[in-house]
Protein backbone atom coordinates (compact mmCIF):
# COMPACT_ATOMS: atom_id res chain seq x y z
CA UNK A 1 0.00 0.00 0.00
CA UNK A 2 2.95 2.36 0.52
CA UNK A 3 3.46 2.69 -3.21
CA UNK A 4 0.08 4.40 -3.37
CA UNK A 5 1.60 7.47 -1.80
CA UNK A 6 4.27 7.66 -4.46
CA UNK A 7 1.77 7.16 -7.26
CA UNK A 8 -0.36 9.97 -5.87
CA UNK A 9 -3.46 7.80 -5.75
CA UNK A 10 -6.12 9.54 -3.65
CA UNK A 11 -6.78 7.96 -0.26
CA UNK A 12 -10.50 8.20 -0.84
CA UNK A 13 -12.33 9.23 -3.97
CA UNK A 14 -16.08 9.42 -4.29
CA UNK A 15 -17.88 10.43 -7.45
CA UNK A 16 -21.57 10.69 -8.10
CA UNK A 17 -22.41 8.74 -4.92
CA UNK A 18 -26.11 8.42 -4.15
CA UNK A 19 -27.67 6.46 -1.35
CA UNK A 20 -31.19 5.90 -0.13
CA UNK A 21 -32.64 4.48 3.10
CA UNK A 22 -35.95 3.23 1.72
CA UNK A 23 -37.39 6.26 -0.10
CA UNK A 24 -35.28 8.74 1.80
CA UNK A 25 -32.19 9.91 -0.03
CA UNK A 26 -29.36 10.26 2.51
CA UNK A 27 -26.51 11.04 0.09
CA UNK A 28 -26.93 13.17 -3.01
CA UNK A 29 -24.28 13.30 -5.72
CA UNK A 30 -21.31 13.22 -3.41
CA UNK A 31 -18.05 14.26 -5.05
CA UNK A 32 -15.08 14.03 -2.73
CA UNK A 33 -11.37 13.44 -3.14
CA UNK A 34 -9.13 13.01 -0.14
CA UNK A 35 -5.41 12.80 -0.78
CA UNK A 36 -3.06 10.77 1.35
CA UNK A 37 -2.15 12.59 4.56
CA UNK A 38 -5.06 15.00 4.30
CA UNK A 39 -7.24 15.73 7.33
CA UNK A 40 -10.88 16.36 6.66
CA UNK A 41 -13.47 17.49 9.18
CA UNK A 42 -17.09 16.93 8.22
CA UNK A 43 -19.81 18.83 10.05
CA UNK A 44 -23.46 19.51 9.58
CA UNK A 45 -26.83 19.22 11.32
CA UNK A 46 -28.01 15.82 12.47
CA UNK A 47 -29.50 13.74 9.69
CA UNK A 48 -27.36 15.49 7.08
CA UNK A 49 -25.70 12.25 5.99
CA UNK A 50 -22.22 12.91 7.37
CA UNK A 51 -22.00 9.65 9.36
CA UNK A 52 -23.43 7.70 6.44
CA UNK A 53 -20.78 9.20 4.20
CA UNK A 54 -17.83 7.95 6.22
CA UNK A 55 -19.58 4.64 6.93
CA UNK A 56 -19.68 4.14 3.16
CA UNK A 57 -15.89 4.48 3.05
CA UNK A 58 -15.44 1.25 5.05
CA UNK A 59 -18.56 -0.29 3.53
CA UNK A 60 -20.56 -0.48 6.73
CA UNK A 61 -23.20 1.00 4.42
CA UNK A 62 -23.69 0.13 0.75
CA UNK A 63 -24.04 2.96 -1.77
CA UNK A 64 -26.49 2.43 -4.57
CA UNK A 65 -25.05 4.72 -7.24
CA UNK A 66 -21.66 6.16 -8.07
CA UNK A 67 -18.14 5.05 -7.36
CA UNK A 68 -16.11 4.94 -4.18
CA UNK A 69 -12.43 4.05 -4.31
CA UNK A 70 -10.20 3.67 -1.30
CA UNK A 71 -6.44 3.72 -1.91
CA UNK A 72 -7.10 2.97 -5.55
CA UNK A 73 -9.35 -0.05 -4.93
CA UNK A 74 -12.96 0.29 -5.89
CA UNK A 75 -15.60 -0.68 -3.34
CA UNK A 76 -17.94 -3.12 -4.99
CA UNK A 77 -19.51 -6.41 -3.98
CA UNK A 78 -16.22 -8.28 -4.29
CA UNK A 79 -15.68 -9.68 -0.79
CA UNK A 80 -11.89 -9.96 -0.96
CA UNK A 81 -11.70 -6.29 -1.91
CA UNK A 82 -13.81 -5.24 0.99
CA UNK A 83 -11.80 -7.19 3.54
CA UNK A 84 -8.58 -5.80 2.11
CA UNK A 85 -9.87 -2.26 2.37
CA UNK A 86 -11.26 -2.70 5.87
CA UNK A 87 -7.80 -3.74 7.03
CA UNK A 88 -6.37 -0.46 5.77
CA UNK A 89 -9.14 1.70 7.17
CA UNK A 90 -9.60 2.18 10.91
CA UNK A 91 -12.89 3.37 12.35
CA UNK A 92 -13.67 4.98 15.69
CA UNK A 93 -17.32 5.07 16.73
CA UNK A 94 -19.37 7.46 18.83
CA UNK A 95 -20.27 4.62 21.21
CA UNK A 96 -16.68 3.24 21.35
CA UNK A 97 -17.90 -0.31 20.58
CA UNK A 98 -15.19 -1.98 22.62
CA UNK A 99 -15.76 -5.68 23.21
CA UNK A 100 -17.04 -5.78 26.80
CA UNK A 101 -16.06 -9.40 27.42
CA UNK A 102 -12.38 -8.83 26.67
CA UNK A 103 -9.73 -6.87 28.52
CA UNK A 104 -8.34 -3.72 26.99
CA UNK A 105 -5.28 -5.66 25.83
CA UNK A 106 -7.40 -8.46 24.32
CA UNK A 107 -9.50 -5.87 22.49
CA UNK A 108 -6.31 -4.58 20.89
CA UNK A 109 -4.69 -7.93 20.09
CA UNK A 110 -7.77 -9.72 18.71
CA UNK A 111 -7.45 -8.57 15.11
CA UNK A 112 -3.65 -8.72 15.24
CA UNK A 113 -3.96 -12.41 16.04
CA UNK A 114 -6.79 -13.29 13.71
CA UNK A 115 -6.24 -10.98 10.75
CA UNK A 116 -2.56 -10.02 10.82
CA UNK A 117 -1.61 -13.51 12.08
CA UNK A 118 0.81 -12.14 14.70
CA UNK A 119 1.77 -14.46 17.52
CA UNK A 120 0.78 -13.54 21.03
CA UNK A 121 4.04 -11.86 22.02
CA UNK A 122 4.24 -9.72 18.88
CA UNK A 123 0.59 -8.75 19.15
CA UNK A 124 0.92 -7.74 22.79
CA UNK A 125 4.03 -5.69 22.08
CA UNK A 126 2.26 -3.79 19.32
CA UNK A 127 -0.86 -3.32 21.46
CA UNK A 128 1.15 -2.06 24.45
CA UNK A 129 3.09 0.42 22.34
CA UNK A 130 -0.18 1.87 21.02
CA UNK A 131 -1.78 1.92 24.46
CA UNK A 132 1.25 3.95 25.54
CA UNK A 133 0.65 6.27 22.64
CA UNK A 134 -2.88 6.96 23.91
CA UNK A 135 -1.52 7.26 27.47
CA UNK A 136 -3.26 4.28 29.12
CA UNK A 137 -0.80 1.35 29.22
CA UNK A 138 -1.64 0.91 32.92
CA UNK A 139 -5.26 0.00 32.08
CA UNK A 140 -4.32 -2.92 29.79
CA UNK A 141 -5.60 -5.65 32.09
CA UNK A 142 -8.93 -3.98 32.87
CA UNK A 143 -12.24 -4.54 31.17
CA UNK A 144 -13.86 -1.71 29.19
CA UNK A 145 -16.69 -1.42 31.73
CA UNK A 146 -14.14 -0.42 34.37
CA UNK A 147 -12.88 2.56 32.38
CA UNK A 148 -14.22 6.09 31.92
CA UNK A 149 -15.71 7.11 28.58
CA UNK A 150 -12.62 9.06 27.60
CA UNK A 151 -10.38 6.12 28.42
CA UNK A 152 -12.63 3.76 26.47
CA UNK A 153 -12.51 5.97 23.41
CA UNK A 154 -8.72 6.15 23.61
CA UNK A 155 -8.63 2.34 23.78
CA UNK A 156 -10.87 2.24 20.71
CA UNK A 157 -8.41 4.51 18.87
CA UNK A 158 -5.49 2.31 19.95
CA UNK A 159 -7.38 -0.79 18.84
CA UNK A 160 -7.84 0.65 15.36
CA UNK A 161 -4.24 1.83 15.18
CA UNK A 162 -3.00 -1.69 16.00
CA UNK A 163 -3.97 -2.68 12.47
CA UNK A 164 -1.62 0.02 11.19
CA UNK A 165 -4.29 1.58 8.97
CA UNK A 166 -3.62 4.05 6.15
CA UNK A 167 -6.80 5.97 6.83
CA UNK A 168 -8.66 6.67 10.07
CA UNK A 169 -12.37 7.45 10.17
CA UNK A 170 -13.88 9.11 13.24
CA UNK A 171 -17.65 9.11 13.64
CA UNK A 172 -18.45 11.76 16.27
CA UNK A 173 -15.77 10.38 18.60
CA UNK A 174 -16.43 12.86 21.41
CA UNK A 175 -20.22 13.19 21.25
CA UNK A 176 -20.91 10.52 23.87
CA UNK A 177 -18.33 11.83 26.33
CA UNK A 178 -18.69 13.90 29.46
CA UNK A 179 -17.29 17.38 28.82
CA UNK A 180 -14.18 16.94 30.98
CA UNK A 181 -13.11 13.91 28.95
CA UNK A 182 -13.34 15.41 25.49
CA UNK A 183 -9.92 17.01 25.48
CA UNK A 184 -8.04 13.81 26.35
CA UNK A 185 -9.50 12.18 23.23
CA UNK A 186 -8.94 15.24 21.03
CA UNK A 187 -5.31 15.42 22.20
CA UNK A 188 -4.75 11.89 20.93
CA UNK A 189 -6.40 12.77 17.63
CA UNK A 190 -4.27 15.90 17.26
CA UNK A 191 -1.04 13.99 17.77
CA UNK A 192 -2.23 11.40 15.25
CA UNK A 193 -2.87 14.22 12.76
CA UNK A 194 0.58 15.66 13.38
CA UNK A 195 2.11 12.31 12.46
CA UNK A 196 0.55 12.61 9.01
CA UNK A 197 -2.35 10.15 9.30
CA UNK A 198 -5.06 10.51 6.67
CA UNK A 199 -8.18 11.36 8.69
CA UNK A 200 -11.86 11.86 8.02
CA UNK A 201 -13.57 13.12 11.16
CA UNK A 202 -17.23 13.74 11.65
CA UNK A 203 -17.22 16.10 14.61
CA UNK A 204 -18.61 19.35 15.95
CA UNK A 205 -15.40 20.20 17.78
CA UNK A 206 -14.66 23.36 15.85
CA UNK A 207 -11.50 24.10 17.82
CA UNK A 208 -10.14 20.76 16.65
CA UNK A 209 -11.20 21.57 13.08
CA UNK A 210 -9.39 24.91 13.13
CA UNK A 211 -6.29 23.34 14.56
CA UNK A 212 -5.76 20.26 12.41
CA UNK A 213 -8.11 20.21 9.43
CA UNK A 214 -6.80 20.81 5.94
CA UNK A 215 -10.35 21.09 4.76
CA UNK A 216 -13.71 21.48 6.48
CA UNK A 217 -16.78 20.08 4.76
CA UNK A 218 -20.30 21.21 5.58
CA UNK A 219 -23.11 18.82 4.74
CA UNK A 220 -26.84 19.42 4.81
CA UNK A 221 -29.69 17.20 3.60
CA UNK A 222 -27.34 14.69 2.05
CA UNK A 223 -25.30 17.18 0.03
CA UNK A 224 -21.86 18.66 0.40
CA UNK A 225 -22.90 22.30 0.65
CA UNK A 226 -19.55 23.93 1.16
CA UNK A 227 -15.93 22.98 1.64
CA UNK A 228 -12.96 25.15 2.34
CA UNK A 229 -9.81 25.49 4.43
CA UNK A 230 -10.72 26.11 8.07
CA UNK A 231 -9.84 29.80 8.20
CA UNK A 232 -11.97 30.72 5.20
CA UNK A 233 -14.66 28.27 6.24
CA UNK A 234 -15.16 29.74 9.70
CA UNK A 235 -14.43 33.37 8.92
CA UNK A 236 -16.08 33.73 5.52
CA UNK A 237 -18.69 31.04 5.00
CA UNK A 238 -20.17 31.47 1.53
CA UNK A 239 -23.44 29.60 1.85
CA UNK A 240 -26.43 30.77 3.86
CA UNK A 241 -27.01 27.31 5.33
CA UNK A 242 -23.39 27.18 6.47
CA UNK A 243 -23.71 30.58 8.11
CA UNK A 244 -26.87 29.53 9.91
CA UNK A 245 -25.30 26.29 11.13
CA UNK A 246 -22.12 28.01 12.33
CA UNK A 247 -24.12 30.67 14.13
CA UNK A 248 -26.11 27.94 15.89
CA UNK A 249 -23.14 25.95 17.12
CA UNK A 250 -20.64 28.75 17.80
CA UNK A 251 -22.70 31.39 19.60
CA UNK A 252 -23.40 29.95 22.98
Amino acid sequence: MTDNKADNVPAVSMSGVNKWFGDFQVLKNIELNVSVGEKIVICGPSGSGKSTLIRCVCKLEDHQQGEISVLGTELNDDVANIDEIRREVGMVFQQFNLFPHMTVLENCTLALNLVRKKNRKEAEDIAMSLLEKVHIPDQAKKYPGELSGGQQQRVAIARSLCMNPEIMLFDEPTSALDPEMISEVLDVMVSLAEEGMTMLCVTHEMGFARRVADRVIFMDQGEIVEQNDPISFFDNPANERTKLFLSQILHH
Partner: protein
Amino acid sequence: MRSGIKSLNTASNTSAPPDASLSHRIKRNLFDTPFDSLLTGVCGLVLAYLLYQIVDWAFLSSIWTAEQEPLCRDASGACWSVIDARHRIILFGLFPFEEHWRSTLACVVMIGTIVASCFPWFWTGKKLSVLWLCGFGTFYLLMHGGLFGLSVITPEKWGGLALTIFIFAAVSLIGMPLSILLALGRRSKLPIIARMVGLFIDFFRSLPLLTILFAAAVITPFLLPGWLQGDKLYRVIVGFAIFFACYQAENIRAGLQAIPAGQDEAGLTLGLNYRQRVSRIQLPQAFRNSLPSIVNQFVITFKETSIVTIVGFFEILASGQAAYGTGQWTQHYIEVYVFIAAIYFVFVFSLSRYGAYLEKKLRVGHD
Protein backbone atom coordinates in the same frame (compact mmCIF):
# COMPACT_ATOMS: atom_id res chain seq x y z
CA MET B 1 -13.71 5.74 36.94
CA ARG B 2 -13.39 3.63 40.03
CA SER B 3 -10.12 5.15 41.15
CA GLY B 4 -11.58 8.57 40.40
CA ILE B 5 -14.49 8.02 42.75
CA LYS B 6 -12.22 6.68 45.45
CA SER B 7 -9.97 9.70 45.38
CA LEU B 8 -12.93 12.06 45.48
CA ASN B 9 -14.30 10.24 48.49
CA THR B 10 -11.09 10.38 50.47
CA ALA B 11 -10.68 14.03 49.57
CA SER B 12 -14.06 15.02 50.97
CA ASN B 13 -13.56 12.60 53.87
CA THR B 14 -16.99 10.95 53.66
CA SER B 15 -17.56 8.20 56.23
CA ALA B 16 -18.78 4.67 55.56
CA PRO B 17 -22.50 3.96 56.03
CA PRO B 18 -23.39 2.80 59.58
CA ASP B 19 -22.63 -0.90 59.87
CA ALA B 20 -25.84 -2.80 60.62
CA SER B 21 -24.88 -5.72 62.85
CA LEU B 22 -26.66 -9.08 62.63
CA SER B 23 -28.38 -8.80 66.01
CA HIS B 24 -29.55 -5.30 65.16
CA ARG B 25 -31.00 -6.47 61.85
CA ILE B 26 -32.73 -9.47 63.49
CA LYS B 27 -34.34 -7.23 66.03
CA ARG B 28 -35.46 -4.70 63.44
CA ASN B 29 -36.81 -7.26 60.96
CA LEU B 30 -38.38 -9.86 63.27
CA PHE B 31 -39.16 -8.33 66.69
CA ASP B 32 -39.87 -4.68 65.97
CA THR B 33 -43.38 -4.61 67.48
CA PRO B 34 -45.15 -7.03 69.90
CA PHE B 35 -47.23 -8.29 66.96
CA ASP B 36 -44.04 -8.95 64.95
CA SER B 37 -42.61 -10.88 67.89
CA LEU B 38 -45.79 -12.96 68.18
CA LEU B 39 -45.75 -13.74 64.45
CA THR B 40 -42.07 -14.65 64.57
CA GLY B 41 -42.66 -16.88 67.57
CA VAL B 42 -45.61 -18.77 66.03
CA CYS B 43 -43.87 -19.27 62.68
CA GLY B 44 -40.73 -20.39 64.46
CA LEU B 45 -42.64 -23.01 66.45
CA VAL B 46 -44.42 -24.36 63.36
CA LEU B 47 -41.14 -24.59 61.47
CA ALA B 48 -39.42 -26.31 64.39
CA TYR B 49 -42.26 -28.84 64.66
CA LEU B 50 -42.13 -29.67 60.94
CA LEU B 51 -38.36 -29.94 61.03
CA TYR B 52 -38.58 -32.31 64.03
CA GLN B 53 -41.14 -34.48 62.22
CA ILE B 54 -38.91 -34.78 59.15
CA VAL B 55 -35.75 -35.49 61.14
CA ASP B 56 -37.61 -38.03 63.27
CA TRP B 57 -39.02 -39.80 60.20
CA ALA B 58 -35.82 -39.77 58.20
CA PHE B 59 -33.24 -40.38 60.91
CA LEU B 60 -34.35 -40.94 64.51
CA SER B 61 -37.04 -43.61 64.02
CA SER B 62 -35.79 -45.05 60.75
CA ILE B 63 -34.45 -48.49 59.87
CA TRP B 64 -31.30 -48.56 57.79
CA THR B 65 -30.11 -52.01 56.68
CA ALA B 66 -31.72 -54.68 54.56
CA GLU B 67 -31.39 -57.36 57.27
CA GLN B 68 -33.52 -55.27 59.61
CA GLU B 69 -36.38 -55.19 57.11
CA PRO B 70 -38.78 -57.16 59.38
CA LEU B 71 -38.51 -54.32 61.93
CA CYS B 72 -39.92 -51.90 59.36
CA ARG B 73 -43.49 -53.02 60.01
CA ASP B 74 -43.39 -51.68 63.56
CA ALA B 75 -41.15 -48.67 62.98
CA SER B 76 -42.77 -45.22 62.79
CA GLY B 77 -39.96 -43.79 60.67
CA ALA B 78 -38.54 -44.37 57.23
CA CYS B 79 -37.53 -47.84 56.12
CA TRP B 80 -34.26 -47.13 54.30
CA SER B 81 -33.71 -50.89 54.08
CA VAL B 82 -35.39 -50.72 50.69
CA ILE B 83 -32.57 -48.52 49.37
CA ASP B 84 -29.94 -50.81 50.88
CA ALA B 85 -31.54 -53.84 49.26
CA ARG B 86 -32.61 -52.39 45.95
CA HIS B 87 -30.20 -49.54 45.16
CA ARG B 88 -28.55 -51.48 42.35
CA ILE B 89 -31.83 -51.69 40.46
CA ILE B 90 -32.38 -47.97 40.95
CA LEU B 91 -28.90 -47.03 39.82
CA PHE B 92 -28.30 -49.60 37.08
CA GLY B 93 -31.71 -50.88 35.91
CA LEU B 94 -31.43 -54.12 33.96
CA PHE B 95 -27.68 -53.80 33.41
CA PRO B 96 -26.11 -57.24 34.10
CA PHE B 97 -25.23 -57.52 37.79
CA GLU B 98 -21.58 -58.55 37.41
CA GLU B 99 -20.96 -55.62 35.01
CA HIS B 100 -22.26 -52.91 37.33
CA TRP B 101 -18.71 -51.63 37.83
CA ARG B 102 -18.73 -50.61 34.17
CA SER B 103 -21.89 -48.60 34.59
CA THR B 104 -20.50 -46.96 37.73
CA LEU B 105 -17.24 -46.07 36.06
CA ALA B 106 -19.10 -44.76 33.01
CA CYS B 107 -21.17 -42.45 35.22
CA VAL B 108 -18.06 -41.19 36.98
CA VAL B 109 -16.39 -40.48 33.62
CA MET B 110 -19.43 -38.66 32.29
CA ILE B 111 -19.93 -36.59 35.43
CA GLY B 112 -16.21 -35.79 35.34
CA THR B 113 -16.58 -34.62 31.75
CA ILE B 114 -19.54 -32.43 32.62
CA VAL B 115 -17.74 -30.94 35.63
CA ALA B 116 -14.55 -30.36 33.61
CA SER B 117 -16.45 -28.50 30.91
CA CYS B 118 -17.67 -26.12 33.61
CA PHE B 119 -14.13 -24.74 33.98
CA PRO B 120 -13.45 -21.69 31.81
CA TRP B 121 -10.07 -23.18 30.85
CA PHE B 122 -11.91 -25.63 28.58
CA TRP B 123 -13.95 -22.95 26.84
CA THR B 124 -12.58 -23.14 23.36
CA GLY B 125 -14.21 -25.07 20.56
CA LYS B 126 -11.20 -27.35 20.21
CA LYS B 127 -10.75 -28.23 23.89
CA LEU B 128 -14.47 -28.81 24.42
CA SER B 129 -14.67 -31.05 21.36
CA VAL B 130 -11.71 -33.16 22.49
CA LEU B 131 -12.98 -33.36 26.06
CA TRP B 132 -16.45 -34.43 25.04
CA LEU B 133 -15.32 -36.87 22.37
CA CYS B 134 -13.02 -38.57 24.90
CA GLY B 135 -15.54 -38.46 27.75
CA PHE B 136 -18.42 -39.61 25.64
CA GLY B 137 -16.34 -42.24 23.84
CA THR B 138 -15.17 -43.72 27.13
CA PHE B 139 -18.70 -43.70 28.51
CA TYR B 140 -20.01 -45.46 25.43
CA LEU B 141 -17.20 -48.02 25.40
CA LEU B 142 -17.79 -48.87 29.06
CA MET B 143 -21.54 -49.14 28.70
CA HIS B 144 -21.72 -50.86 25.34
CA GLY B 145 -18.57 -52.97 25.47
CA GLY B 146 -17.43 -55.05 22.53
CA LEU B 147 -13.80 -53.92 22.76
CA PHE B 148 -10.90 -54.83 25.09
CA GLY B 149 -12.66 -58.02 26.17
CA LEU B 150 -15.73 -56.20 27.51
CA SER B 151 -18.88 -58.11 26.75
CA VAL B 152 -21.46 -56.36 24.58
CA ILE B 153 -24.44 -54.94 26.46
CA THR B 154 -27.04 -53.46 24.12
CA PRO B 155 -28.82 -50.20 24.99
CA GLU B 156 -32.16 -51.85 25.83
CA LYS B 157 -30.46 -53.29 28.92
CA TRP B 158 -29.10 -49.91 30.00
CA GLY B 159 -30.98 -48.31 32.82
CA GLY B 160 -31.12 -46.33 36.01
CA LEU B 161 -28.87 -43.37 36.72
CA ALA B 162 -26.46 -44.33 33.95
CA LEU B 163 -29.24 -44.11 31.35
CA THR B 164 -30.46 -40.80 32.74
CA ILE B 165 -26.96 -39.36 32.54
CA PHE B 166 -26.40 -40.84 29.09
CA ILE B 167 -29.57 -39.28 27.71
CA PHE B 168 -28.83 -35.92 29.30
CA ALA B 169 -25.23 -35.88 28.06
CA ALA B 170 -26.09 -37.08 24.56
CA VAL B 171 -28.93 -34.59 24.20
CA SER B 172 -26.63 -31.77 25.33
CA LEU B 173 -23.81 -32.93 23.10
CA ILE B 174 -25.95 -33.05 19.97
CA GLY B 175 -28.30 -30.26 20.97
CA MET B 176 -25.86 -27.48 21.90
CA PRO B 177 -24.00 -27.25 18.57
CA LEU B 178 -27.29 -27.68 16.75
CA SER B 179 -28.88 -24.89 18.77
CA ILE B 180 -26.03 -22.53 17.86
CA LEU B 181 -26.44 -23.34 14.17
CA LEU B 182 -30.21 -22.83 14.40
CA ALA B 183 -29.84 -19.51 16.24
CA LEU B 184 -27.36 -18.22 13.66
CA GLY B 185 -29.43 -19.63 10.81
CA ARG B 186 -32.55 -17.83 11.97
CA ARG B 187 -30.61 -14.55 11.90
CA SER B 188 -29.15 -15.24 8.46
CA LYS B 189 -29.18 -12.40 5.95
CA LEU B 190 -30.46 -14.82 3.31
CA PRO B 191 -34.24 -14.76 3.70
CA ILE B 192 -34.70 -18.33 2.52
CA ILE B 193 -32.39 -19.74 5.21
CA ALA B 194 -33.83 -17.53 7.93
CA ARG B 195 -37.39 -18.57 6.98
CA MET B 196 -36.62 -22.28 6.73
CA VAL B 197 -34.81 -22.35 10.07
CA GLY B 198 -37.58 -20.30 11.65
CA LEU B 199 -40.14 -22.77 10.36
CA PHE B 200 -38.09 -25.73 11.61
CA ILE B 201 -37.77 -24.23 15.10
CA ASP B 202 -41.41 -23.24 15.37
CA PHE B 203 -42.54 -26.62 14.06
CA PHE B 204 -40.71 -28.58 16.73
CA ARG B 205 -41.61 -26.12 19.46
CA SER B 206 -45.27 -26.59 18.61
CA LEU B 207 -45.11 -30.32 19.32
CA PRO B 208 -45.14 -31.84 22.81
CA LEU B 209 -41.91 -33.62 23.70
CA LEU B 210 -43.89 -36.81 24.17
CA THR B 211 -45.13 -36.74 20.58
CA ILE B 212 -41.61 -36.23 19.28
CA LEU B 213 -40.25 -39.12 21.34
CA PHE B 214 -43.08 -41.39 20.22
CA ALA B 215 -42.52 -40.47 16.62
CA ALA B 216 -38.79 -41.08 16.98
CA ALA B 217 -39.31 -44.45 18.63
CA VAL B 218 -42.28 -45.81 16.72
CA ILE B 219 -42.85 -43.95 13.46
CA THR B 220 -39.35 -43.26 12.09
CA PRO B 221 -38.61 -46.98 11.53
CA PHE B 222 -41.30 -46.91 8.83
CA LEU B 223 -39.81 -43.83 7.20
CA LEU B 224 -36.07 -44.38 7.37
CA PRO B 225 -34.09 -47.06 5.55
CA GLY B 226 -32.77 -49.79 7.82
CA TRP B 227 -29.15 -48.67 7.89
CA LEU B 228 -30.18 -45.20 9.04
CA GLN B 229 -32.49 -46.30 11.84
CA GLY B 230 -30.04 -47.22 14.55
CA ASP B 231 -31.17 -48.39 17.96
CA LYS B 232 -34.45 -47.07 19.34
CA LEU B 233 -32.50 -45.28 22.09
CA TYR B 234 -30.44 -43.34 19.55
CA ARG B 235 -33.51 -42.28 17.61
CA VAL B 236 -35.17 -41.10 20.79
CA ILE B 237 -32.05 -39.14 21.74
CA VAL B 238 -31.88 -37.45 18.33
CA GLY B 239 -35.55 -36.49 18.63
CA PHE B 240 -34.97 -35.17 22.14
CA ALA B 241 -31.87 -33.27 20.98
CA ILE B 242 -33.80 -31.55 18.20
CA PHE B 243 -36.47 -30.52 20.70
CA PHE B 244 -33.79 -29.24 23.10
CA ALA B 245 -31.95 -27.41 20.30
CA CYS B 246 -35.07 -25.58 19.14
CA TYR B 247 -35.66 -24.13 22.61
CA GLN B 248 -31.99 -23.46 23.28
CA ALA B 249 -31.65 -21.78 19.87
CA GLU B 250 -34.30 -19.27 20.87
CA ASN B 251 -32.46 -18.57 24.13
CA ILE B 252 -29.22 -18.00 22.26
CA ARG B 253 -30.98 -15.89 19.66
CA ALA B 254 -32.37 -13.69 22.42
CA GLY B 255 -28.79 -13.22 23.62
CA LEU B 256 -27.64 -12.36 20.11
CA GLN B 257 -30.44 -9.81 19.62
CA ALA B 258 -29.35 -8.01 22.77
CA ILE B 259 -25.88 -7.26 21.39
CA PRO B 260 -25.66 -3.70 20.03
CA ALA B 261 -25.11 -3.54 16.25
CA GLY B 262 -21.93 -1.58 16.88
CA GLN B 263 -20.19 -4.69 18.19
CA ASP B 264 -20.43 -6.41 14.85
CA GLU B 265 -19.48 -3.21 13.04
CA ALA B 266 -16.37 -2.88 15.19
CA GLY B 267 -15.45 -6.43 14.21
CA LEU B 268 -16.08 -5.65 10.55
CA THR B 269 -13.88 -2.57 10.54
CA LEU B 270 -11.07 -4.57 12.15
CA GLY B 271 -11.27 -6.93 9.17
CA LEU B 272 -12.65 -9.96 11.00
CA ASN B 273 -14.56 -12.43 8.85
CA TYR B 274 -18.00 -13.83 9.68
CA ARG B 275 -16.73 -16.91 11.49
CA GLN B 276 -14.34 -14.85 13.62
CA ARG B 277 -16.99 -12.30 14.49
CA VAL B 278 -19.44 -15.02 15.47
CA SER B 279 -17.03 -17.06 17.57
CA ARG B 280 -15.12 -14.22 19.24
CA ILE B 281 -17.60 -11.38 19.53
CA GLN B 282 -21.19 -12.53 19.12
CA LEU B 283 -21.46 -15.93 20.77
CA PRO B 284 -19.46 -15.10 23.93
CA GLN B 285 -21.69 -12.11 24.52
CA ALA B 286 -24.86 -13.99 23.58
CA PHE B 287 -24.07 -16.71 26.14
CA ARG B 288 -23.46 -14.07 28.78
CA ASN B 289 -26.67 -12.26 27.94
CA SER B 290 -28.92 -15.29 28.10
CA LEU B 291 -27.05 -17.41 30.62
CA PRO B 292 -30.02 -17.75 33.02
CA SER B 293 -32.33 -19.14 30.35
CA ILE B 294 -29.61 -21.36 28.87
CA VAL B 295 -28.95 -22.94 32.28
CA ASN B 296 -32.69 -23.18 32.81
CA GLN B 297 -33.03 -25.22 29.61
CA PHE B 298 -30.37 -27.66 30.86
CA VAL B 299 -32.18 -27.99 34.19
CA ILE B 300 -35.49 -28.68 32.46
CA THR B 301 -33.84 -31.20 30.15
CA PHE B 302 -32.23 -33.12 32.99
CA LYS B 303 -35.60 -33.55 34.66
CA GLU B 304 -37.46 -34.25 31.42
CA THR B 305 -35.24 -37.26 30.71
CA SER B 306 -37.75 -39.16 32.86
CA ILE B 307 -40.26 -38.91 30.00
CA VAL B 308 -38.38 -41.58 28.02
CA THR B 309 -40.05 -44.09 30.35
CA ILE B 310 -43.10 -43.75 28.12
CA VAL B 311 -41.29 -45.26 25.14
CA GLY B 312 -39.96 -48.13 27.21
CA PHE B 313 -36.67 -47.09 28.79
CA PHE B 314 -35.83 -47.66 32.43
CA GLU B 315 -34.14 -44.42 33.40
CA ILE B 316 -33.78 -43.70 37.09
CA LEU B 317 -37.43 -42.95 37.87
CA ALA B 318 -38.76 -46.06 36.11
CA SER B 319 -36.01 -48.17 37.70
CA GLY B 320 -37.14 -46.84 41.05
CA GLN B 321 -40.68 -48.01 40.39
CA ALA B 322 -39.30 -51.42 39.49
CA ALA B 323 -37.24 -51.41 42.68
CA TYR B 324 -40.20 -51.13 45.07
CA GLY B 325 -42.54 -53.07 42.77
CA THR B 326 -41.74 -56.54 44.09
CA GLY B 327 -42.99 -58.41 47.12
CA GLN B 328 -41.92 -57.12 50.49
CA TRP B 329 -40.97 -53.57 49.36
CA THR B 330 -44.29 -52.42 47.88
CA GLN B 331 -45.17 -50.21 50.87
CA HIS B 332 -41.88 -48.37 50.84
CA TYR B 333 -42.25 -46.33 47.68
CA ILE B 334 -41.93 -43.05 49.60
CA GLU B 335 -38.39 -43.90 50.64
CA VAL B 336 -37.51 -44.82 47.05
CA TYR B 337 -38.92 -41.59 45.68
CA VAL B 338 -37.14 -39.56 48.36
CA PHE B 339 -33.90 -41.27 47.38
CA ILE B 340 -34.45 -40.55 43.67
CA ALA B 341 -35.49 -36.99 44.45
CA ALA B 342 -32.24 -36.55 46.36
CA ILE B 343 -30.25 -37.72 43.34
CA TYR B 344 -32.13 -35.34 41.03
CA PHE B 345 -31.64 -32.59 43.58
CA VAL B 346 -27.88 -33.06 43.73
CA PHE B 347 -27.56 -32.78 39.95
CA VAL B 348 -30.02 -30.00 39.33
CA PHE B 349 -29.07 -27.93 42.35
CA SER B 350 -25.39 -28.11 41.39
CA LEU B 351 -26.34 -27.02 37.89
CA SER B 352 -28.30 -24.03 39.19
CA ARG B 353 -25.57 -23.01 41.61
CA TYR B 354 -23.02 -23.26 38.83
CA GLY B 355 -25.23 -21.01 36.71
CA ALA B 356 -25.41 -18.47 39.51
CA TYR B 357 -21.63 -18.61 39.96
CA LEU B 358 -21.11 -18.06 36.23
CA GLU B 359 -23.41 -15.07 36.17
CA LYS B 360 -21.43 -13.49 38.96
CA LYS B 361 -18.10 -14.30 37.36
CA LEU B 362 -19.08 -13.07 33.91
CA ARG B 363 -20.41 -9.80 35.19
CA VAL B 364 -16.78 -8.66 35.58
CA GLY B 365 -16.40 -5.49 33.59
CA HIS B 366 -20.09 -5.20 32.78
CA ASP B 367 -20.98 -1.89 34.44
